[in-house]
């Protein structure tokens, strides 16, 4: 049984992390009730979620973390696994990365080591943060280097919330670009998510739920946006629904590692199969279904619809259209009552409408987990390594350049020790390099697939 450590950094990271633990508790409580796990199995595997993962909470201002500690989840978190400060990073990557980084490096290392010691077999770190702010962005990415040096064998999965176009933090382009460089160099796998897409998904759900078009009611707990409810009562704050989507993403990602299935997929397999070249480790994700109708007998058509939806641009958690871009690899993680024949049928059905790179025409990684998420009979998480992330990065670069040309707000950064203009230049060129790699792959898109001449040997 492998464990992961979740490191939640900054306001965004901690709020999402909180939702994640909430839902994880709910999921394991539901599963244990059904008595699927027979503890008489002598191997002594316990699906006790607390022994499953450890959490480290980091924030440079106390508000959010304190709230977590006073809430119903306070017993879940070991108060010794927190690192907080008072002043906050002022939405400044440099403060988060350079100032707090060096200030708290020892403390952070110590907490991480302790978490790792609690783990029987530590497989991966999940870092949750936003790109646009100061702490999540700066300190969060500082952590990556620390983790790489201290635990080189442990995978680093990063869930990054990218700022949308109308972000209220003016310096978010600077913070994002500076953070991108770190992600390029020190993360194993990045799941970019943007707020606008999450918001669109919520609007879509609201529309479906309230329209009454379908004539049947939607199961309340089955909304991918709903919080546990049973475990904790809290006022639905504006970002709650969006955070729940991300929390569901993380739950589904780890489901095959936590539960049984006929075709298991561990976290290290994600990196192995979806990262063909070390730099190209950005995965576009989509979750379906967004809700379940109350009628129990879901015919096959509904199941196939789930697969189709996973590839539509409305279900992606980042503004991207994978169908019209080039796939390098694609993973389908299915949960619930779905069998291999359903999976094969849908892959064969959808394949003609998708473009895969020439050397990976059958670039599918599949997994089947028997346990569905709470409130659903089946669900699908699709992870795609696709060139459709390119526009997001290019837009980010545009916004950065617009600010940088005017030297707006630059002094806040440059006055921090260790920050120079070259840092910005390096970060931009790192991003440009990445975009160039995607461009090269895109150029091969419409070329015919040729079989290369094989090795000829003397018989």
């Amino acid at each position, binding site marked *: 049984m492998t464990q992961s450590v979740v490191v939640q950094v900054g306001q965004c990271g901690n709020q999402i992390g909180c939702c994640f633990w909430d839902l994880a508790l709910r999921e394991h409580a539901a599963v244990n009730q059904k008595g699927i796990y027979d503890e008489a199995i002598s191997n002594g595997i316990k699906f006790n979620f607390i022994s499953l993962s450890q959490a480290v909470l980091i924030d440079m201002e106390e508000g959010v973390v304190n709230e977590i500690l006073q809430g119903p989840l306070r017993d879940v978190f070991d108060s010794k696994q927190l690192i907080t400060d008072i002043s906050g990073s002022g939405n400044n990557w440099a403060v988060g990365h350079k100032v707090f980084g060096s200030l708290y490096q020892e403390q952070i290392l110590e907490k991480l080591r302790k978490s790792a010691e609690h783990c029987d077999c530590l497989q991966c770190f999940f870092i949750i943060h936003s790109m646009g702010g100061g702490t999540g962005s700066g300190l969060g990415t500082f952590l990556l280097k620390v983790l790489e040096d201290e635990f080189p064998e442990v995978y680093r999965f990063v869930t990054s919330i990218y700022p949308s176009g109308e972000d209220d933090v003016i310096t978010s382009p600077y913070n994002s670009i500076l953070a991108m460089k770190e992600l390029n160099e020190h993360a194993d796998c990045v799941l970019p998510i943007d707020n606008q897409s999450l918001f669109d998904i919520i609007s879509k759900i609201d529309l479906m739920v309230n329209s009454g078009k379908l004539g049947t009611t939607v199961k309340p707990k089955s909304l991918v946006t709903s919080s546990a409810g049973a475990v904790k009562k809290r006022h639905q704050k504006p970002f709650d629904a969006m955070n729940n989507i991300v929390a569901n993403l993380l739950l589904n990602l780890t489901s095959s590692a936590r539960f049984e299935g006929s*075709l298991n997929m561990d976290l290290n397999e994600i990196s192995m*199969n979806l990262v063909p070249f070390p730099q190209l480790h950005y995965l576009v994700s989509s979750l379906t279904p967004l809700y379940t109708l109350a009628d129990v007998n879901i015919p096959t058509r509904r199941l196939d619809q789930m697969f189709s939806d996973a590839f539509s641009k409305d279900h992606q958690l980042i503004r991207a259209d994978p169908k019209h871009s080039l796939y390098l690899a694609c993973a389908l993680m299915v949960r619930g009552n779905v069998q291999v024949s*359903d999976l094969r049928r849908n892959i064969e059905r959808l394949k003609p409408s998708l473009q895969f790179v020439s050397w*990976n025409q059958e670039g*599918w990684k599949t997994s089947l987990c028997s346990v569905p998420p709470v409130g659903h009979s089946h669900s699908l998480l699709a992870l795609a390594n696709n060139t459709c992330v390119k526009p997001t990065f290019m837009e980010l670069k545009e916004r950065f350049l617009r600010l940088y040309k005017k030297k707006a707000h630059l002094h806040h950064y440059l006055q921090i020790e260790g920050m120079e203009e070259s840092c910005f230049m390096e970060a931009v060129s790192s991003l440009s390099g990445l975009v160039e790699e995607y461009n090269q792959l895109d150029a091969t898109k419409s070329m015919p697939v040729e079989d290369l001449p094989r090795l000829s040997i003397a018989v």
Partner: protein
Amino acid sequence: MSIVTVQLGQCGNQIGFEVFDALYTDSHCPQGLCSKRENEAYQASCKERFFSEEENGVPIARAVLVDMEPKVTSQSLSKAAQSGRWKYGQHSCFCQKQGSGNNWAYGYSVHGPRHEEAIMNLIQKEVEKCDSLSGFFIIMSMAGGTGSGLGAFVTQNLQDQYSNSLKMNQIIWPYGTGEVIVQNYNSVLTLSHLYRSSDALLVHENDAVHKICAKLMNIKQISFSDINQVLAHQLGSVFQPTYSVEGSCHYRRNPLGICPLFNLSNKMYVKYTYRNIFFSSCLELFIKCLASFPLIGIDWQVRPPLSGLPTLGKVSLNRELHFNTSIANLVILRGKDVHSADLGGFKDPALYTSWLEPIHAFNVWKTQRAFSKYEKSAALVSNSQFLLKPLDTIVGKAWNMFASKAYIHQYTKFGIEEEDFLDSFALLEQVVASYCNL
């Protein structure tokens, strides 16, 4: 003579369980369609081969379960124990906490050496329980990390340590449309390594078995459990005891002594096993199948007969009738009227390569004792050009990927360098060429 089974990885362990279950169920089938004495001899032979005895009478499978993460092995162990009919040995399981991540290099270069001693010890213990060891049956997949990488490593070790015993690997060929993205790399590395250390490779393609489930068995929603059960049935009908040359009531002692002419390459292919039909029409089908050039779209339409009337199978042959050349064929017949079956068609020289006489290349094993609930059943194990196309396809795809250097960094991280890949490609190209030139 006994067989020790080594089940590796998720696939190996899931299938292994079904195989032992099928073997047990068959040997304890009440019918048998033969004399009581014969039935008892059959049961005893089966028992000796695959199970060892425990005090309270519950047979223990002669198997070692190996996986790098615990979920599947614990499932297999508990399913067997819960059945109450047979079980796995309490200490026959080797497990770690973290899997191989679909990485052949990790399975071969990291897990292999690290756990070599523990795994070989377990196998040794199982071997010591046998009165006489016939050989090893290693069940693994090619696409993943543990079954493929660790499987190749273990097979090599078995070759070193037990060079006199036969090693047969049951390998599962992944779905053509992709189960694991790096499956072609893993397959190429596995096959090239197994070629050097295994005596025989028994191949089952997921696509083929899936088609059997869909078309012949009409299962609507096919699960891996269905697929594994079909596989287990096929293997059971091949490995259960049959008469030795001395005649009935003496069961063949060496179960793995299949056709001796494997000097060229050791590929075999278990064709579909047909039930409840006359041997003649079934055998006709087999011959047609052997003769036609291997093409994925061979359409089998055999319906179960009504009241014993034979049905005609429809085989759509390729337009150009190439003969699929065989090196060796083995037909296994079980059940009623087994002695009157006409096997003349199999001795046609046209089926075999020019440097072989049919008499050397064709073998038949029989028993009157029926398999499971089928009045008659027939199985064909063939070493021929059947696998040429799938093999060629896999090598081609792996080569294309290799040319772009995709995913190579994942393998070099754990010690498998580009030269190792090239060596593997070279070996497999030789195999492809050899089969082509039959």
